[in-house]
């Protein structure tokens, strides 16, 4: 084929330019470490890389969320541990106070200890999360959640718990509200409360009782009356006209009396016309429980162990504190499971991140060994093209004329 001189030059120059463009591209890949910088260079890979980048960025945000949540839950965990210890020590005080060998002054001192516990509990309930936000105020985190009022402690926070996203599919509840932790605890045995009526003349006292058949229990007010030291009857006061629903004779101290699916035990000797009331349990709170215990100890009778009402009260307080402990333990268990969920999510995130990074790197990162060998090849090609051009350009028949 016939070639034109200009065409020969153009072909050679085109080849050199082409090599140079390829080298520039390889050089850019090596300096940036990326196979591509814009979508056009690998549209499918680029879109996948953007998606993977997004998942990784989302995950690191979820990690930040988790860290914030974890720190708050740890604060709650710590506080709940303190609350549990405090309730335990109050319960010990109550047990100690029930000891019939204690004198009035000793009980006063115990009462004092309970008052200090109450103040400490108030401090715990009003703790902040280390960032100046009240831990137990629900979402009203700027509001001091608990205040001692004239009728007991008031909860001023709200009952909203926030959710925090810790993965694309999972969100966890943040710390519990004060209402969840400290308030709304069913008193006594959780179903009914027993009281020794003031003015009883006998030495009989009543325990907190227990439910034996929940289906038979009717939440009415009942009075247990002793018509004589050995004869008793139970009157349902809620019905329009009081009705005797159970009665018995031949009572001996320490005997348990059953009616309406419940069971109470009377110890000591009742006098005729002594009464005990059995009413449905109310919801109370930890502060009221401690306050009640302190007041029971402060109001202890001069002669220790002689007052039936006092014994029943102490027994009730111990039952109350058991309920409070139950609450703090169950809330703690929930916190524990949330913290555990955070750990599991973190483990999953980490292993996912390793996979995604590997995938991303495969997709987007330059294989240096390959790129450098490519650059060398292109360099050799360019050199050859340049050498060929100089040879061809030099050859001319005119040189021989």
């Amino acid at each position: 084929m016939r070639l034109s001189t200009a065409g020969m030059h153009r072909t050679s120059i085109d080849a050199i330019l082409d090599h140079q463009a390829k080298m520039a591209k390889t050089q850019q890949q090596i300096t940036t470490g990326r196979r591509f910088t814009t979508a056009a260079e690998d549209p499918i890979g680029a879109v996948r890389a953007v998606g993977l980048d997004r998942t990784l960025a989302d995950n690191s945000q979820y990690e930040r969320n988790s860290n914030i949540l974890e720190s708050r839950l740890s604060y709650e965990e710590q506080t709940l541990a303190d609350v549990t210890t405090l309730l335990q020590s109050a319960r010990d005080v109550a047990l100690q106070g029930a000891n019939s060998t204690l004198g009035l002054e000793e009980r006063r001192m115990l009462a004092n200890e309970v008052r200090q516990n109450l103040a400490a509990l108030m401090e715990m309930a009003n703790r902040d999360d280390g960032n100046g936000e009240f831990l137990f105020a629900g979402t009203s985190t700027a509001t001091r959640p608990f205040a001692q009022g004239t009728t007991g402690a008031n909860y001023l926070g709200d009952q909203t718990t926030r959710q925090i996203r810790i993965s694309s599919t999972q969100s966890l509840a943040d710390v519990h509200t004060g209402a969840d932790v400290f308030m709304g605890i069913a008193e006594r045995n959780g179903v009914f409360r027993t009281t020794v009526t003031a003015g009883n003349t006998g030495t009989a006292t009543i325990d907190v009782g227990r439910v034996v058949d929940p289906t038979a229990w009717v939440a009415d007010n009942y009075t247990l009356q002793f018509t004589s030291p050995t004869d008793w009857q139970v009157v349902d006061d809620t019905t329009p006209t009081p009705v005797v629903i159970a009665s018995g004779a031949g009572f001996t101290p320490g005997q348990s009396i059953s009616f309406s699916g419940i069971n109470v035990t009377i110890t000591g000797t009742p006098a005729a016309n002594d009464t005990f009331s059995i009413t449905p349990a109310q919801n109370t709170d930890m502060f009221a429980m401690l306050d009640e215990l302190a007041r029971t100890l402060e109001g202890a009778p001069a002669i220790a162990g002689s007052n039936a009402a006092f014994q029943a009260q102490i027994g009730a307080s111990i039952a109350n504190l058991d309920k409070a402990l139950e609450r703090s333990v169950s809330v703690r268990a929930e916190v524990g499971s949330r913290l555990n969920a955070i750990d599991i999510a973190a483990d999953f995130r980490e292993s996912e991140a390793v996979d995604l990074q590997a995938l991303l790197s495969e997709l987007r990162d330059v294989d240096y060994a390959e790129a450098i060998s490519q650059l060398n090849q292109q360099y050799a090609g360019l050199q050859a093209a340049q050498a060929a051009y100089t040879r061809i350009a030099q050859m001319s028949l005119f040189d021989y004329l």
Partner: protein
Amino acid sequence: MADMMGTGLSSLRALQRALDTTAHNIANVSTPGYTRQRVDFATRTPQAYGTNWIGSGVNATSVRRIYDQFVSQQARTSSGTLARMDAYASQAERLDNLLGDTTNGLSTSLQGFTNAINEVSSTPSSISARQVLLAQGNALTERLRSYDARLREMSSSVDTRLVGEASEISGLARGVARLNGDIAVAIQQTGQAPNDLLDQRDALIDQLSGKVGVTVVAEGESTLNVFIGTGQPLVLGTTASQITTVANPLDPERVQLALQTPSGTVDISRSVSGGTLGGLLDWRREMLDPARNELGRITLAVANQVNSQHREGMDLTGALGGNFFNTGGVGVVSATSNPTDATATATRVDLGALTTHDYVLTNIGTGYELRRQDTGASVAFTGAGTALDPILADGLSIVVGAGSASGDQFVIHPTREAMAGFSVAITDPARIAAAAPIRAAAASGNTGNATITSGEVLTVSGTLTTPVDIVFTSATQYSINGGAAQTYAPGGNIDFNGWRVQISGAPAAGDTFTVRSNAGAVGDNRNAFALADAMRAGVIEGGTVSVNAAVERMTGNLGLQTRAAQMSRDAEAVVNASDLATRDAISGVNLDEEAANMLRFQQAYAAAAQIIAVSGQLFDTLINAVRR
């Protein structure tokens, strides 16, 4: 002997021409568009001597271009195609560089914004987290506004090119017309084609074809007629038409190419298919406009998702959240060719139904006709275009003002104008509505164990935050604010005043649940949490495509289109190189060949000179013989 002298002289003259032509070829080795020339030799008419015919030498009959009409036409066509593809691909690369950046593109800004929402969700009372959210929101709007500005500039730079090229095309056309005349005159004078003028004319037509794509039709021996677009005459003999730019009646911001004819201007923008201008116009129609519309739609999706959720929240001041983002409205342009000055307005009513097309609404006298601007395809709609009965189509509601008459046209850009007005509506970080507007609670004296959910907003109404008490009159019945007794269904929805709560468990008679305004709940993140989820939810195309997916899809599509354009360009470059090589193989100058020719002609010239010398000697011999 005289004949021998004559033969030698004829040879000298012919070879002189050949050497001149060789010199001309060598001189023009680097001239673009130059076609090598060759002298054709022919024997002169022989003379009769008795019964014999004796040759009488040589004539240089013509100087001819070595030119193959077919091959040159092919090279011109492929050069025009390459010019179109090159313009298309290089503009596509600009767009890809702007929007297809995989490490620092729009998805990065969106990610920053989403992360900032998450941060507010984790620490809703933190003013600094809220400030970061505002800053990220501003960065996102800034990014989209700057995209908008850059895309507008890219579009208007096409117009600038059109204006400049129009006058160049006119100049080239005038050059072709003038050369047509000159060539005709030259042929008349000598009967021979002026090769260098033919080359010049071809070069001008090559340039034209590189700009717009033309059809060339030969008329007679001397004239080439050039047609543009769908057959509009650009050059007819010695007259050239003028190409101008006029404002596009449907889009006054843009110009279109027009051919000036004695009867007025004819729009040829749509029919320009080849060359640089064809590539630019194709690129604007196929890539730039859809990309602008898609970005606009993404802007609207972000704004809509964030705004509708944000309005359902409560800010730190206890007020309901307003709009987080502002966006631009629907662009409606009345065509400048409209017979009336009626205007039209359009609003977006359904984001999920919005497309990335532009539309033309035409008043056809008996009603309206709605068509896509790019393809002209008819679009189904309902309504009469009045305020009471607006035209509803593809997520738009269009109202045409009074006084519109048949022939009025309105161009509707549903999404692209959203970007220009995209901004953050909030400046005070306290006004970010991270909290839910209501709080539900169980009263502290409740004896049952029923619990209430924290509540969700169904519709934003004026009574949303009005205090409401739900009181159980028995374990199975409740009343709301003392209203009629309702049967309690554990876990069932209780809807009131635009909110919804659920109560579950066993309530006791007298138990009370309250729903109150959530003012003061500075640590509430419920709305921020919902905002973060809204950013991941499907919203576009009937709620199937999320914002992030739309961005990724747009990036991917631009990448694919750019890559396809690059590949077409590279393939066409190979075709074009081969066409040029074929043309050069025929028409190009080869210096070695010219050197050989020169040597050949030089030797022949020397030989011819020897003929004259020998002829002289022969004559002398004869004279000397006679003198004796």
